[in-house]
């Protein structure tokens, strides 16, 4: 029997059929009728189902007894979690509890967790790993549109006349988006690629601009400068007719060339392509956001989209390449400390009134972000409840984050496997995989799609929603348990979901919020913005790179996402086929640098930063510029995150995970 569901890997949300026999998932295959994936899947989609029956799946709750995790019943585990959290709350106040939600569970579960944290536990410290990837996007897009979401759909890429990719590798990270870009490039649509590293598909694109790591803001501003200075801006937008005294004047292409190392003529060419080709889509990823200038970078890209008239029309808009299957759903459900459900700021009183109608009460202020909670572990934060995230490995500076988790009085982890984080926990709650539960995922363009139960839960696992509801019950609250009921309640708290009928979610491809058909003809942005326009706010003063290369650490080390490794590898490393694809950790160096250091491809080396070192195999390549090192985010034999900085960007609280200074040593 085949069950229609939604792929649980990246943000594309491809339609997938799970083949089931004797309560075992045998295979995953693509859904031909799906409007987005149209009968295709990437390697992760095809093989990721192998995790469901992996022998390391947790099958019963575990509680810590004399340093060891031992099996327990659900009743024991839930009672223990309740008693310990209640005691912490009584002793230190609700403020001492932190809750970290998942970007992989269903939206219904993210919503219930938010409700549990804010209304039942009463803590303002609720956040999710959206923080580590796209907090700057949430900050800028929420401020500009009132919605922290993409201003274009994935299918807009098909209608675009020009495409700009900045700091992302769509082929590896979101293959379906990569496929649409590939098809456009093959049709002769100009594609501009901005990245410090040349990728497999880059030769197919029209223009490749290779800025020095961390200098993107100057490049984006130079594009704005050229467009305004030459009068190429969209006439309908903002009435900007000349360079004003807003700081953009100094970003001439020549100045940007000095800062970024991108030739001035390429900047002019890119500006012309963006301004004159017609509707354009701008796609960006964590290469742009995980920087100390993350928010400024996203604002600059927003400015570029606005200036080129790429807001509110078909085939145009700004798309943050959200990296998890339900990162958008987590944002929709308000699983970030500054947000309430429905993309509204928690500090706004009307928002709190709306939500309080269903929740009873909720904190008035925002709390700590993920990284702040880790920094405060053992101090302000005594107890932490982590759902579906391997925080110890996801956070930058792994040693520091692991130490922080050990400082907690009480740690509860809810996951499929005994991750590095779960191994530190006092209570581990075994959760169902995507094949064992019902709900919805929302993809990176706001497409809400059904996740359907294909098999009975493995062992004694419960769905995340059921575990959260049981915990709420222990605290005396009653949560809805039926996914449809939860969705209906969510609709009351999330205004942009209100026009959707539950039955519509059953159709292939589900529904793109705000409403089916609302974005027809004008792009998703128009449906979201209504008659409003976002603002053009040039951001020119970028903060300096926190840890620039110096004599001791002469290389700028940056990381990126390969195809086969996702996040901390909790899922990917447990798929037999995926796990054997890319077992060797490599570090890339420019061929000239390798020659100068008398190193050759294939040699073992050690990448050393101020936080630690990683043994890797060297790859000499022309894909990156001299003076840089590239480390793929890899979940085996050590983690690139362990080397990276936990310095926080001031506006959105994203750690500067992309860049730091490093040196190479022979291993």
């Amino acid at each position, binding site marked *: 029997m085949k069950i229609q569901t939604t792929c649980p890997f990246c943000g594309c949300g491809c339609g997938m059929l799970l083949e089931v026999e004797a309560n075992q998932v045998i*295979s995953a295959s693509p859904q031909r*009728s799906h409007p987005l994936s149209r009968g295709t899947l990437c390697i992760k989609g095809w093989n990721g189902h192998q995790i469901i029956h992996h022998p390391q799946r947790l099958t019963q709750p575990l509680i810590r007894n004399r340093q060891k995790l031992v099996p327990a019943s659900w009743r024991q585990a839930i009672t223990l979690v309740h008693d310990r959290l209640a005691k912490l709350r009584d002793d230190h106040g609700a403020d001492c509890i932190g809750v970290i939600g998942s970007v992989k569970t269903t939206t219904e579960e993210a919503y219930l967790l938010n409700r549990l944290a804010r209304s039942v536990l009463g803590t303002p410290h609720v956040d999710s790993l959206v923080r580590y990837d796209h907090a700057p996007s949430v900050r800028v897009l929420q401020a500009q549109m009132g919605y922290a979401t993409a201003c274009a759909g994935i299918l807009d890429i098909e209608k675009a006349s020009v495409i700009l990719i900045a700091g992302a590798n769509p082929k590896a990270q979101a293959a379906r988006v990569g496929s649409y870009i590939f098809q456009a490039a093959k049709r002769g649509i100009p594609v501009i690629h901005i990245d410090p590293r040349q990728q497999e598909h880059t030769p197919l694109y029209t223009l490749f601009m290779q800025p020095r790591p961390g200098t993107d803001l100057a490049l984006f501003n130079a594009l704005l400068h050229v467009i305004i200075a030459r009068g190429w801006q969209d006439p309908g937008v903002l009435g900007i007719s000349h360079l004003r005294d807003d700081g953009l004047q100094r970003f001439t292409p020549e100045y940007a060339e000095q800062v970024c190392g991108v030739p001035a003529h390429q900047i002019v060419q890119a500006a012309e392509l963006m301004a004159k080709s017609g509707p354009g889509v701008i796609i960006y990823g964590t290469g742009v956001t995980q920087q100390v200038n993350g928010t400024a970078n996203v604002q600059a890209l927003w400015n570029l989209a606005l200036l080129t008239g790429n807001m509110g029309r078909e085939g145009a808009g700004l798309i943050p390449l959200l990296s998890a299957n339900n990162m958008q759903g987590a944002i929709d459900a308000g699983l970030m400390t500054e947000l309430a459900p429905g993309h509204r700021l928690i500090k706004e009183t009307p928002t709190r009134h709306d939500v309080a109608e269903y929740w009873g009460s909720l904190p008035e202020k925002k709390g700590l972000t993920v990284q702040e909670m880790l920094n405060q572990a053992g101090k302000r934060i005594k107890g932490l409840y982590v759902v579906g995230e391997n925080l110890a490995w996801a956070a930058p500076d792994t040693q520091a984050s692991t130490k922080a988790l050990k400082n907690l009085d009480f740690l509860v982890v809810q996951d499929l496997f005994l991750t590095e984080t779960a191994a530190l926990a006092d209570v581990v709650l075994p959760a169902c995989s995507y094949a064992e539960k019902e709900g919805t995922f929302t993809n990176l363009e706001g497409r809400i799609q059904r996740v359907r139960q294909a098999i009975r839960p493995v062992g004694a696992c419960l769905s995340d929603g059921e575990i959260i509801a049981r915990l709420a019950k222990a605290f005396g609250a009653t949560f809805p348990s039926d996914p449809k009921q939860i969705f209906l309640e969510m609709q009351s708290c999330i205004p942009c979901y209100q026009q959707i009928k539950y039955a519509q979610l059953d159709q292939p491809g589900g529904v793109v919020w705000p409403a089916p058909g609302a974005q027809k003809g004008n792009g998703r942005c128009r449906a979201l913005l209504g008659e409003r326009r976002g603002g053009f706010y040039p951001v020119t003063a970028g903060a300096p790179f926190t840890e620039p290369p110096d004599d001791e650490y002469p290389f700028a080390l940056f990381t990126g996402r390969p195809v086969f490794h996702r996040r901390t590898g909790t899922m990917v490393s447990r798929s*037999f086929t995926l796990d*054997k*694809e890319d077992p060797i950790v490599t570090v890339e160096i420019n061929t000239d640098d390798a020659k100068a250091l008398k190193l050759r491809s294939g040699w073992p080396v050690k990448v050393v930063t101020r936080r630690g070192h990683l043994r890797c195999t060297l790859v000499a390549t022309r894909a990156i510029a001299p003076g840089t090192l590239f480390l793929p985010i890899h979940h085996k034999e050590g983690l690139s995150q362990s080397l990276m900085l936990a310095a926080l960007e001031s506006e959105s609280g994203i750690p500067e995970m992309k860049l730091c200074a490093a040196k190479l040593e022979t291993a």
Partner: protein
Amino acid sequence: MQVSAKAIVPKTLFLEGLARCMKKTEVIAPVKMKGGDITFEPISNVRQITFDYVNDHDPLKRFFIPAREELFSYHFSGNKPVAKSPPQPKPRVLFGIRSCDLQGLAHMDGFFQGAFEDQLYWQRRQQTLTISLACTEPLDTCFCICCNGGPWLEHGFDLQLTDLGETFLVEIGSAAGRRFLEEWHVPCQSAKRKDLQLRQELMQKCDEKMIPTAYLAKACIQITNNRVREELWDEMGAECFSCGGCTHVCPCCTCFDVYDCPQEDGQGTRYRCWDSCQYAGFTREASGHNPRAKAKERVKRRFYHKLSYAYIQQDGHPGCVGCGRCITVCQAFNQLDVPAVVKRLRRDG
């Protein structure tokens, strides 16, 4: 009725026979899912069968070599390891399968009874009766006429049906097919000249509707004689997403891998799962060396296996039946499927 005879059966009566069979034997037939996707599934009522389809998106090889299957499980009895085989397959009928898939099965038969006979495959194969339905309306991705994969077959089926409107033209391809008609009391009358003529017309129309897109001959020559420029393989390798979809949906692709799932208590299971020559892990050797580390080498390998004379001589036909699934499944849209590559190879020198 003799084997190789052609008979006429009213559709309703054939389906009644199938319904009688269903009471004793599992029947797998095309079913339309909510949303419109077609899938072959065990049915409990003939009314579940849809005839509004050209083909399933998945090839039927999954019924003979599932994407993941248990080879055996083991446990310890004292210090002695004890292995347990999976249960024996039960008889079943595959109804409504298309010629290209059946031709793909013939290709797989050659592989799984080659140098080594694969017991699991053969047990399933022998327990399955195939009733194929010849195509009268091709999809725009179909190119079976280029590969001798359809739209109808001369042999390889137990029963082959052609939809003549109110009736099926039934061709009996094996003794098992004949037994099916007898056992389930399917009333057959010898086909008349006009029936055969009607079927001929239908087939001719179908042939005409199919735009032959894959002229294999020149591409085979190019590949066999190593005349394809390296730059073209470079180009195709750079385009490939290495998703492995083309091999998973190919009725002729047979590659698999074997892995163990040991448990802490000494029990465990050995599984076999589909693998793909498009994956880097497929050819990586124990030393870490990978003879096909780059996507380019893997794409090259795939088409060498599909089109080179060495394999055509070994298998008796190219490694393609023209089902067109690789066209739909490819992320590098219209660039790396069989017709696209054949076209690129033909024009390359």
